[in-house]
């Protein structure tokens, strides 16, 4: 570059810079007075509770001052606030023990999500159009109170329905009391990947209607029937920590782990031995093991006690479940059945448990009871290295109980569509049934028939877009948060924590809104608490058993919960009378000729049932086995793929008798030739900018087949066909793989 050009360029850059720095808008920003006394630059760690799944892990939140854009009295400006910056596991918490999964780490994005609903909204457009106008909290609460008063005036309180995610603790108690005092039926807890079958089985076998706590750390031999316990099932953080101890924490002793499943999960990929089995025959395999153990006199049959008595033919040595018959039914070789059975009985302490797809068939209860019997036979219940049941904290007051049990969700939807269940006011808290139910249930049509719907959601999803009124809840970091872990700890736990930060927006805690609505009704409900905090304190502070309830409460909120031994633990429930069960072939929807493949949807490692698909860090999280991110895919066996002319990333259509979806194929050896598997979570038609219109939703095409004993959805009981419909079009994004699509393209 010569001198002249250098000068020209310098002049150009200089003038551009000078022009660019003209005007300095920072000092024109309105700054509000900070509400807290803050020490700048010093981080504080506050306790909290992770609400993203039911495990109830304890968190610590790094809180530090920063400038935050806020709106006060309609005026936008900036203020200094102490806000959450990072989430970690609470090292003192008995469930998470300082651990936190990737989903929990991403939980901070719930608070700072750009599409969060910031204030109460009232619908102005058609349902699902997402057209809303801003209303004040006074107007919103008055509107809901007017609707409820309308029901009360017409003596039609039974037409109020409350749909919620499965919740425990005081939040559930508060809702239950609200509904009971109003005169409405109990709340309907809806979860796609529910564990009701396992709870029922554990109630029958052991008198504990709850999920098991796995003492992996002290176990020598672990037999898992389909449970993705290191990824998505039960209490994954507690399991991962204990699993590490089992494998590497004892010098000279490394526990063995066998995974029995039809489709390889993240957990299965960690196993020493991976045993593929025909879908729905896991219970037979468990009894095959029991047969070998009894016949080789490794344990006497009567050692199984109550759990064994639930299986027909148990006392007479399980003649029906001899290894050669079991081998034919399950596809596992006789030699392998015998070998695993011997290891299971001899390498003690051992444990067996079932979860996931085996408990999503029509014969699921039999499978769960069979695995329980196998466990009891070897003596693994309430023994170190076996299975425990976490003592449950009773948080429900002895208040009035709801007038009438809630119908199951499919019956509710069917009842509304058929006009038999005249629901006039529907409240939704934390559930997204429009997305997470089979289309055959017609939930959207049912919602269209409900005259008034209010949602407490923080985001516009498929369900809250149907709402007439949105009363946005705080994020969990901004409000009191609690969880009563059902499993994951050997001692009783009640996680509870105060807000880690002040609310960023005009949101309100759902508990406080319900209490206020209760006070504003023409006939006030007279609930026993003024605030949600009071509802928590009155039940949880007495657990510590100290003299001063305020002191106890201070200590509990400081450590993020209470844990310890209960003074009066609940005794096991007496055995219910139940006819001994026998193996029945699982029923699958769809003709085997027309729909030759078993369809296995499974909770994705990032989004579980899809409720976390709005968090961009989780969209960016590569799937542990396929490395796919920001997309949907379906796994196909290599031989099947070759036969059907399907290559990796080809676009395929999956059709059941109830609908079809298209997605990209991933050829994977981790499943049998007659099975195709697909992760659940994507395919949202409306769920923030990050999830909307991304991938396909396998739940939509599921058959409405139910497990008959519990009435829960048998989500692994659908048959499908699959065909190639097109070349790879870039919709499948692999981590560091062929970047055929930029995941952020098209985002604002």
């Amino acid at each position, binding site marked *: 570059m010569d001198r002249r050009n250098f000068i020209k360029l310098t002049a150009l850059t200089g003038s551009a810079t000078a022009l660019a720095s003209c005007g300095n808008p920072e000092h024109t920003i309105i700054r509000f007075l900070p509400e807290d006394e803050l020490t700048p630059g010093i981080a504080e760690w506050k306790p909290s509770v992770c609400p993203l799944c039911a495990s109830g892990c304890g968190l610590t939140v790094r809180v530090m001052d920063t400038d935050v854009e806020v709106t006060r009295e309609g005026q936008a400006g900036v203020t200094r606030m102490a806000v959450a910056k990072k989430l970690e596991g609470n090292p003192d918490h008995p469930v998470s023990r300082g651990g936190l999964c990737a989903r929990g780490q991403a939980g901070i994005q719930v608070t700072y999500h750009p599409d969060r609903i910031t204030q109460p909204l009232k619908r102005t457009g058609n349902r699902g159009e997402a057209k809303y106008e801003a209303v004040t909290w006074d107007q919103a609460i008055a509107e809901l109170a007017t609707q409820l008063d309308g029901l009360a005036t017409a003596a039609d309180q039974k037409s109020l329905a409350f749909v919620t995610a499965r919740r425990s603790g005081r939040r559930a108690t508060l809702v239950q009391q609200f509904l009971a005092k109003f005169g409405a039926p109990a709340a309907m807890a809806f979860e796609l990947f529910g564990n009701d079958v396992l709870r029922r089985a554990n109630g029958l076998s052991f008198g504990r209607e709850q999920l098991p706590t796995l003492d992996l750390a002290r176990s020598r031999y672990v037999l898992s029937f389909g449970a993705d316990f290191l990824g998505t099932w039960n209490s994954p953080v507690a399991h991962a920590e204990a699993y590490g101890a089992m494998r590497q924490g004892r010098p000279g002793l490394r526990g063995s782990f066998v995974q029995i499943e039809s489709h390889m999960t993240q957990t299965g990929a960690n196993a020493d031995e991976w045993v593929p089995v025909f879908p729905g025959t896991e219970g037979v395999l468990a009894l095959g093991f029991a047969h070998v153990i009894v016949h080789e006199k490794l344990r006497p049959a009567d050692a199984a006690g109550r759990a064994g008595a639930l299986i027909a033919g148990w006392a007479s040595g399980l003649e029906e479940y001899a290894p050669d018959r079991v081998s034919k039914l399950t596809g596992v070789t006789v030699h392998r059945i015998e070998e695993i059975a011997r290891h299971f009985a001899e390498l003690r302490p051992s444990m067996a448990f079932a979860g996931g797809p085996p408990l999503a068939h029509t014969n699921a209860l039999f499978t769960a009871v069979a695995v329980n019997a196998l466990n009891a036979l070897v003596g693994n219940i309430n023994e170190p290295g076996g299975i425990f049941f976490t003592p449950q904290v009773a948080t429900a007051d002895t208040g009035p109980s709801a007038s009438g049990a809630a119908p199951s969700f499919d019956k509710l939807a069917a009842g509304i569509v058929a006009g038999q269940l005249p629901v006039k006011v529907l409240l939704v808290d934390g559930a997204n049934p429009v997305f997470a139910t089979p289309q055959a249930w017609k939930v959207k049509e049912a919602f269209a028939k409900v005259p008034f719907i209010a949602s407490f959601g923080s985001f516009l999803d498929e369900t809250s877009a149907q709402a007439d009124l949105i009363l946005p809840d705080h994020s969990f970091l901004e409000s009191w948060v609690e969880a009563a872990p059902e499993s994951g700890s050997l001692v009783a736990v009640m996680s509870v924590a105060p807000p880690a930060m002040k609310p960023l927006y005009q949101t309100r805690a759902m508990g406080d809104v319900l209490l206020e609505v209760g006070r504003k009704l023409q006939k006030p409900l007279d609930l026993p608490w003024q605030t949600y905090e009071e509802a928590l304190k009155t039940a949880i502070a007495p657990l510590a058993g100290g003299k001063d309830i305020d002191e106890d409460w201070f200590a509990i909120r400081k450590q993020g919960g209470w844990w310890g031994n209960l003074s009066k633990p609940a005794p096991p429930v007496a055995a219910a009378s139940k006819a001994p069960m026998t193996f029945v072939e699982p029923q699958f929807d769809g003709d085997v000729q027309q729909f030759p493949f078993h369809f296995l949807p499974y909770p994705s490692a990032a989004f579980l049932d899809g409720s976390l698909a709005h968090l961009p860090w989780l969209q960016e999280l590569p799937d542990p086995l396929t490395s796919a991110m920001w997309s949907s895919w379906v796994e196909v066996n290599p031989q099947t793929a070759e036969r059907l002319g399907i290559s990796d990333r080809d676009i395929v259509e999956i059709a059941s008798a109830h609908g079809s979806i298209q997605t990209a194929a991933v050829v994977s050896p981790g499943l049998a030739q007659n099975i195709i598997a697909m992760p659940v979570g994507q395919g949202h038609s409306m769920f923030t900018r990050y999830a*909307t219109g991304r991938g396909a939703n396998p739940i939509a095409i599921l058959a409405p087949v139910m497990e008959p004993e519990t009435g829960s959805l048998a989500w692994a009981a659908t048959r499908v066909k699959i065909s190639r419909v097109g070349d790879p079009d870039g919709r499948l994004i692999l981590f560091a793989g062929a970047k055929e699509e930029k995941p952020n393209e098209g985002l604002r």
Partner: protein
Amino acid sequence: MGLLRRGGFARFWTVVVCAAAVVTGVACGVLAPPKSGTAAMTVLPGQASGIFTPAHSSFGKAVNDFFGRLPPPTQPVEFPHKRHVEIGKEGPELKCTETCHEGVTKSPVAGLPSVNTCLGCHAAIAVDKPIIKQITAMQEKGLDLAWQRVYGYVAQAHVKFNHAPHIAANVECATCHGDIANQTVAQRNVNMHMGVCVTCHREKNAPNECLTCHF
């Protein structure tokens, strides 16, 4: 153009690549407008804007940031540092590190006082002065002074400066901030570059490893 006439092969291609990059950038901006029209893209009432981006709000800010240039501070009120330091020496207890910038002794950041701090004294002192009346009115409305930082590091420097140990080691404020005691509004008149830090650390036998100051 001399650039092309006398430039070598590499230089020619540098220019071509730069020009291509600019053209591509512009073209992408023009040819790929953001998608719109889907329901989820609707901005709901109360949401700040539809746009979530780490980009700078103006071209000027981007240029300043690129060159590591901090714009000169513009303060909301003319705060007379000199007057306050004088009062601190003679009369009531008034110290930089205890009254207004009290974070300096215990945290990485010195902190800038809110109007609550001002009115701790000025609720009773010099209440009839226009500037104090202005500040009192702000507090009543819940507003604060939008002080601007005078010194600071650009993000690219990856510097983690911690005030507290420097105060503990008896480094005078004036060493880095100049003679504030004789200024009204604080001026940025010490050029704090890395050389200043390293020289002082050497003189005082303070650690001089990269990670002492940099991330």
